[in-house]
């Protein structure tokens, strides 16, 4: 214990003996740690935002469909929302909220233009809580009830159709007898979604109104669920998917399978980035410590003359390296924390708006620091840094006393 304290105070004081040199190499370490944490936070934020957008964008955490629906998304592939299975799922304690929808591909006609969209017949009270639509109506109002006869469309779609609030548009779709059904709707609300493609793709009408239009009695095409915690998604899906083979229960990750792949790829590429950054610092750490060792040759000779074992010198220099890395890590983490705090909600990348749209993302990317990312960055630097410090320490301990002491 005694000698540990001695080694510790020697290492600490030696670290600050050449302040400029230590500060320069600390800058390298701090910058490296900062780069690791901030890039991880940015990437994680990007994925987080993607998941958020996906969930917000009508997908929810879990989706329930008729087992044929995904292959053939027509009105006939619908299911009864009051069945035993469905109520068991919607009453599960893990479910935070849910919304049932009639979801149909349809064509919309204004006086001037025609285009294809997806029609969502919803229960406005439930839907506005679960998806972005609840806080996105910027003109007019959202639907009042399931039997509201109005329609809410996206800003971009209104522009494309050359129509506006209060005008009438016609929706055409296939009814349960495979006949074309159409119905006029008055535009009661215009919404503004984070992404243009969303605005162009989805229109909202009352669930009962939609059912009447296509002749559906009581059945629906889709239920989306939001759970209390994303970790519950997979267990719930696995459990519920087995209940009824006519019902297909799937998670958001199945809806967007490439998201999961991207998460995996990000983990790997972040780790490679950590290693690259570390290597860039490692050359400097070794060089700086070796310099410090060789200019103190005489001192190590003196230690040995006074009866210190080589081990003592090894630990002394090693501890110096470790302290340097710890200081660098602390400062680097602190700096990362400050820069993440300073950016507030995230970085605005709207310069690349259409590029972001292409990968289904909105323009503000929040920094998300996860405990895991933080640990991996810190442990990588700490472990590899300790190994790196071992080499100069070993060199120091190998200096022969008589040589060391006579060398000027």
């Amino acid at each position, binding site marked *: 214990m005694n000698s540990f304290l001695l080694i510790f105070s020697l290492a600490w004081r030696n670290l600050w003996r050449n302040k400029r040199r230590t500060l320069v190499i600390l800058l390298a370490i701090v910058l490296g740690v900062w780069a690791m944490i901030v890039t991880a936070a940015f990437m994680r934020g990007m994925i987080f935002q993607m998941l958020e957008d996906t969930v917000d964008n009508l997908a929810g955490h879990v989706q329930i469909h008729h087992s044929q629906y995904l292959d053939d998304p027509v009105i006939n592939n619908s299911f009864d929302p009051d069945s035993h299975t469905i109520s068991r799922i919607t009453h599960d304690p893990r479910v935070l909220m849910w919304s049932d929808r009639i979801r149909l591909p349809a064509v919309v006609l204004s006086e001037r233009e025609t285009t294809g969209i997806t029609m969502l017949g919803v229960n406005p009270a439930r839907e506005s809580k679960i998806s972005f639509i609840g806080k996105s109506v910027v003109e007019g109002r959202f639907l009042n009830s399931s039997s509201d006869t109005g329609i809410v469309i996206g800003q971009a779609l209104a522009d494309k159709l050359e129509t506006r609030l209060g005008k009438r548009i016609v929706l055409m779709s296939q009814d349960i007898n495979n006949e*074309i059904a159409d119905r006029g709707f008055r535009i009661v609300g215009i919404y503004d979604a984070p992404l243009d493609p969303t605005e162009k793709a989805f229109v909202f009408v009352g669930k009962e109104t939609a059912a009447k239009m296509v002749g559906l009695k009581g059945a629906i095409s889709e239920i989306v669920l939001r759970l209390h915690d994303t970790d519950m998604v997979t267990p719930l899906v696995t459990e519920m998917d087995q209940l009824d083979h006519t019902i297909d229960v799937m998670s958001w990750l199945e809806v967007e*399978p490439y998201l999961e792949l991207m998460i995996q790829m990000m983990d790997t590429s972040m780790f490679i980035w950590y290693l690259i*950054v570390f290597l*860039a610092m490692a050359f*400097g750490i070794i060089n700086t410590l070796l*310099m410090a060792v060789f200019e103190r040759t005489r001192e190590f000779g003196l230690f040995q003359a006074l009866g210190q074992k080589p081990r003592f010198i090894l630990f002394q220099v090693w501890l110096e390296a470790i302290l340097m890395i710890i200081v660098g890590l602390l400062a680097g983490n602190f700096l990362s924390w400050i820069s993440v705090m300073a950016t507030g909600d995230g970085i605005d990348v709207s310069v*690349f708006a259409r590029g972001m749209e292409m990968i289904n993302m909105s323009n503000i990317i929040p920094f998300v620091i996860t405990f895991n990312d933080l640990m991996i960055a810190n442990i990588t630097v700490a472990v590899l840094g300790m190994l790196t410090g071992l080499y100069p320490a070993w060199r120091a301990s190998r200096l022969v006393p008589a040589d060391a002491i006579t060398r000027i």
Partner: protein
Amino acid sequence: MTTNWQFAWRNIWRNKRRTILTMCAIGFGASLIVFSVGLQLGQYDLMISGSTRIYQGLVQVQKKGYLDEARMRNSIADAQTLANNIRKTTAINDVAVRANGFALVSSRERTYGVAVIGVETRHEGNVSIIPGLVKEGRYLANDNASEVVIGRSLAKNLKITLGDELTILGSGRDGSIAATIFPVVGIFDSGSRELDRGLVQIPLNSFQQVFSMGNHAHAVVIYHQNAELVDTLKTQLQPLLKAADPDLLALGWDQIQPGIKESIELDYSSGWFMYIVLVAIITFSIMNTFLMSVLERTREFGIMLALGFKPINIGKLVMMEALILTLFALIAGTLIGLAVNYYFLINGLTFEGMEEIAAQYNMPATITPQISIESTLLGPAVILIFTLLAALYPAMKIRKLEPVEAMRHI
């Protein structure tokens, strides 16, 4: 002067281990950046060539405003004559006219809304991959044929097969009802969800008839494999377009698909953020070496000053040392980076999970790095600037040296 370079060269090797470690740091940075910039640029080439080759072409002639709001009325009169003129003037043969509409298509059981495209059957194959990807049946026979080709996913959704009839119902250019029934003669499979699910093609003349278009169309699509020619091509088209209709625009791939351009820019800027950080870390890493190699020679510099050297001479010597060391490391590092790039250029680079993600964006799963002046020299140039800046600090310190004091230094 030669002696000075020799002198600098010898000084570098006075501390071999230190020099080699420093060179390793610089060379490591250089090879890494050369490799990854090459990879990035290669990937962008793929994205651009993919996006132009599949369907959109390199340049499209459209009526002003059509790009933002694809309205049927906003069309090009006598588009086929214009296309012929373009072929003649530019000597590019890969030119095709398209008319775009929207309609409900119905089989006996199902109805979907899709984009209906009228194409020049002889030329469409030169500007898009769809005609070549017909997996069942055949492509459209001629411009007057009454037939349709559809994507595989759509065929599945509509529950129809080859030979079945497809009802097309939309509105024409003048607002009248456009309706017809065509048999399906071909089913294509492009691998792109968007195209396979949401697009059917019919011959141009049939389209013009059904949708009351007269001789109008919506786009003249021009393809060339060299994406860098986009601006030349646009300038070349200017007089031609002016003569035909002052409201016509030539739009490059970057205007037609700004998303691709911006996602490339986003990726490239975030890449350079990382490279600059990396170079800065390396710079701090080696700054100590430069500093030490000067400080430990204080005494020696004192003697040189006493012998009549000027501080500026010694400063120059120090900069020369840094320059030689950096250049050698950069050359070695760049060569290694190039070698790796060359290896992957021959063999292609692919990794796990990439195939799925690539398919999502219509890209092949194998990346080949680009080897160009930009990919090879940009990274090393940045490193050179940073390291010389790092060497400047110790070199400046020498200017304050006093000979007597310096010689007393141990």
